[in-house]
C-alpha cells in the first residue's frame, strides 16, 4: 500500500462499533497526527470523523481480506453453535451470511434450520473414500469390487468417478458453489467444502474457491466488487438500498476508480441512481433522435420525402417531385394566391392544431437538448483536458532537459487535471439533475452553485491551456494551485448543498412520482 492509499484508507475508516462486518485487521491504527499537538485526542477524532454530507464511509478489501473475513465468520459461528467448520460454512451461505439471523433461528429450532439448509451434523459419518463389497453405483452402474466410493452424511453412496464428474459439471459448467446437493434424487444434503476439496482436481477446487468468494460478495448487501476491468478489490459500504433516493454513496477503490456503491456506475454525484438510470435511458433512446427529425424537418405532402428547412423563406419546393407548399401552414403554395411570403392561412383551425403539436414537441426537445448539450460537452471536455495534460507532460519533459526543472515540480499539473476532470464529471451530472429538477425558490442556490463551478472549471481549463515558459513556471504553478483549490471548493459547496437537499427531501423531481407520495 502506498502512503497516499494508506491515508485515504484511514480517513474513510469506520469507527462505528455497531458495524456488522468488520473486515479490517489493523484495528490498532490511531487517528493522531503529530503536528496537531494543540488539539487533544478526542478533538482530532471528531475532526477526522466529521464527514461531509456527500461522503459516505467505506472500506476497500483485497481478495485475501474477503477470504479471511469469511473464515472469521465461519470460525465464529462454528464456536458459538458447536458444529464443525464446514457445516457452519454451509449454514452461513444458506443464510446469505446473515450471522445474527442464523444464530437466532438455530437457537430457536436447530433441527429445522439444519434440515432446510441441507446439513447433517453426524461426526461418525464424515465423508471419506472407501471400497464397499458388493456395491453397485446407481449412476454409472459400475460394480467393480475395487471401486472407490463416497457417501455424504445422508448415506447415499456413489462411486468416486461419478462424484468427480458431477462436481466438475456443477462447478465448471454451471458455476455453482453455494448449494451443490447430494446426487440422490430428493436429497437436499449439501456437499460441504471439505468433501469437495477431497473429490475434485486442484484446478476445479480453485475455481470453486473463486466462486465462493464471488457469491460471498454478491450475497452481501454491504459489499460490492469494484467494477473497473480486471480490478479484484471489493468495497464495503453500509448504505442500504432503501436509502438510495436520499443519498449518492460514492466510493473510491484502491485502483483509483470512483464509482457509485448503489448502482456500480462511475461517480454520478449529485444525481441519485434512479435519476441516472432514467437519464441514460433517455439519451440512448432513439425516439429523441426521431423527435429531433420531426421538429426540424417536414414531409412533402405529395411524395413524402423528408425536407429540411434551412432558410427563412416559407415557399418550399420539394427537390424530388417539385411540389410547392407553404412551410408555415403546409398547404399547397398555389392556394396562397398573392399573399406570397406572408401566409394568411395561419389561423385556420387545421393549421393551428398541427402547429400546436409541433410547437409542444419542439419546446420539450429544445429543453432536453439544452441540458443534454451541456452534459455531453463536459464529457467531451474532460477527454480534451486529459489530452492536453499528456501534451503538457511531454513538453515538460523537454523542458527538464533544457532547464533545471525537476519531475516533482510538474506534478501540480497532474493534480490540477485530476481535479478538473472530477469537477467536469460532477458538472456533467448536475445537468441531468437539473433536467428533472422542478424549479422553485429552493433551487436558486443550486443554480448559483452550478454556475460558479462552471465558471471556475472553465477558468482552470483556460489556465492549463496557457503556453508554458520556463522562466514563468513559479508564477504559473502558484496560479494553478490557487485555481485548483478554488475549483475543488466550489465542487464541495455544490455537492454539500445537493446532498443536504436530498437527505432533507428538499428537491422535487419531475417524472419520479414514486419519490413524493
Amino acid at each position, binding site marked *: 500500500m502506498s502512503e497516499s492509499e494508506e491515508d485515504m484508507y484511514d480517513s474513510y475508516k469506520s469507527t462505528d462499533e455497531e458495524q456488522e462486518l468488520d473486515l479490517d485487521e489493523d484495528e490498532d491504527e490511531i487517528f493522531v497526527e503529530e503536528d496537531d499537538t494543540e488539539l487533544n485526542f478526542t478533538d482530532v477524532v471528531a475532526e477526522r470523523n466529521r464527514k461531509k454530507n456527500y461522503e459516505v464511509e467505506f472500506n476497500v478489501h483485497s481478495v485475501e481480506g474477503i477470504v479471511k473475513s469469511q473464515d472469521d465468520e465461519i470460525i465464529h459461528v462454528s464456536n458459538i453453535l458447536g458444529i464443525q467448520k464446514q457445516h457452519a460454512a454451509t449454514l452461513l451461505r444458506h443464510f446469505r451470511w446473515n450471522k445474527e439471523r442464523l444464530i437466532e433461528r438455530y437457537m430457536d429450532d436447530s433441527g429445522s434450520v439444519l434440515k432446510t439448509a441441507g446439513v447433517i451434523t453426524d461426526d461418525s459419518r464424515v465423508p471419506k473414500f472407501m471400497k464397499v463389497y458388493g456395491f453397485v453405483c446407481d*449412476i454409472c*452402474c459400475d460394480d467393480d469390487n475395487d471401486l472407490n466410493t463416497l457417501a455424504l452424511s445422508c448415506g447415499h453412496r456413489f462411486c468416486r*468417478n*461419478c462424484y468427480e*464428474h458431477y462436481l466438475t*459439471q456443477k462447478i465448471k459448467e454451471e458455476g455453482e458453489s453455494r448449494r451443490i446437493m447430494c*446426487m*440422490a*434424487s*430428493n436429497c437436499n444434503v449439501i456437499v460441504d467444502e471439505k468433501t469437495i476439496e477431497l473429490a475434485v482436481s486442484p484446478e476445479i477446487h480453485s475455481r470453486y474457491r473463486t466462486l465462493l468468494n464471488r457469491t460471498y460478495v454478491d450475497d452481501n448487501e454491504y459489499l460490492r466488487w469494484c467494477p473497473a476491468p480486471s480490478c479484484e478489490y471489493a468495497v464495503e459500504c453500509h448504505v442500504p438500498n432503501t436509502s438510495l433516493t436520499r443519498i449518492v454513496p460514492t466510493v473510491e477503490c484502491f485502483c483509483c476508480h470512483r464509482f457509485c456503491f448503489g448502482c456500480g456506475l462511475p461517480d454520478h454525484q449529485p444525481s441519485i441512481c434512479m435519476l441516472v438510470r432514467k437519464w441514460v435511458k433517455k439519451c440512448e433512446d432513439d425516439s429523441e433522435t426521431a423527435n429531433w427529425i420531426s421538429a426540424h424537418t417536414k414531409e412533402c405532402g405529395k411524395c413524402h420525402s423528408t425536407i429540411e428547412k434551412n432558410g427563412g423563406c416559407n415557399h418550399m419546393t420539394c427537390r424530388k417531385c417539385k411540389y410547392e407548399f407553404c412551410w408555415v401552414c403546409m398547404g399547397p403554395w398555389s392556394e396562397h394566391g398573392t399573399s406570397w411570403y406572408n401566409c394568411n392561412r395561419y389561423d385556420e383551425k387545421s393549421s393551428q392544431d398541427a402547429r400546436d403539436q409541433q410547437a409542444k414537441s419542439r419546446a420539450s426537445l429544445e429543453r432536453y437538448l439544452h441540458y443534454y448539450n451541456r452534459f455531453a460537452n463536459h464529457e467531451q471536455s474532460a477527454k480534451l483536458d486529459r489530452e492536453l495534460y499528456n501534451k503538457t507532460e511531454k513538453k515538460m519533459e523537454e523542458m527538464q532537459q533544457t532547464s533545471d526543472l525537476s519531475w516533482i515540480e510538474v506534478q501540480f499539473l497532474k493534480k490540477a487535471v485530476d481535479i478538473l476532470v472530477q469537477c467536469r464529471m460532477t458538472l456533467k451530472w448536475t445537468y441531468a439533475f437539473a433536467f428533472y429538477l422542478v424549479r422553485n425558490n429552493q433551487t436558486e442556490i443550486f443554480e448559483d452553485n452550478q454556475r460558479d463551478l462552471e465558471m471556475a472549471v472553465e477558468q482552470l481549463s483556460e489556465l492549463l491551456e496557457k503556453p508554458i515558459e520556463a522562466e514563468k513556471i513559479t508564477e504559473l504553478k502558484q496560479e494553478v494551485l490557487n485555481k485548483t483549490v478554488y475549483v475543488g471548493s466550489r465542487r464541495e459547496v455544490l455537492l454539500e448543498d445537493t446532498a443536504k437537499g436530498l437527505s432533507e427531501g428538499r428537491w422535487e423531481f419531475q417524472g419520479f412520482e414514486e419519490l413524493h407520495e
Partner: protein
Amino acid sequence: MSMALFTKRLAKELSDLKINPPVGIEIEEAETFKSWKLNLDGVDGTLYAGERFALEFRFSPNYPMESPEVVFVGNIPIHPHIYSNGHICLNVLYNQWSPVLSVRSICLSIQSMLSSCTCKEPPPDNSHYIRTARSSPKLTQWSFHDDSV
C-alpha cells in the same frame, strides 16, 4: 466429461426399457445417443385415456450429470403444466434433476402428472409464454408453485 459414462449409461437404460418396458411407455426411436423419441399413452380411467403422445429426449455428453431436454412433440396434451409448444413445467427436469433419475423415471413422472390432472386446461400464461420462450425449455427460469396437479 468422459464419453464412456454417457454412452454406457444410455446403452444400459435402453436395454432396460426394451427388456422391461413400463406400462403405456414405448420406444419409438432411439438410433443415436443424441435424441430419443418415446410414446406415452394416457392411462385408462384418467382424462387422457385413449390418447397417445410423443416425448422427445435430447441428451448432452454431460448426461446424466446434466438433465436431458424433454419436450412433447406432435399432439401436445392439454394440461395446466404443459405449454402448447411442448414445454413441460416439471421440477425434476430442471432444478430438481438428480443423476440417479433416468429416462424411465422421467416418463413415469410425466405419466403420473397427466393421470392426476382433474381439469384439462392450458397453463394460464400459455399465450405469453409461447411468444417469449426460447427453443429449449432448459433456458426458461421456471418457478414451481404447485406440484400437486
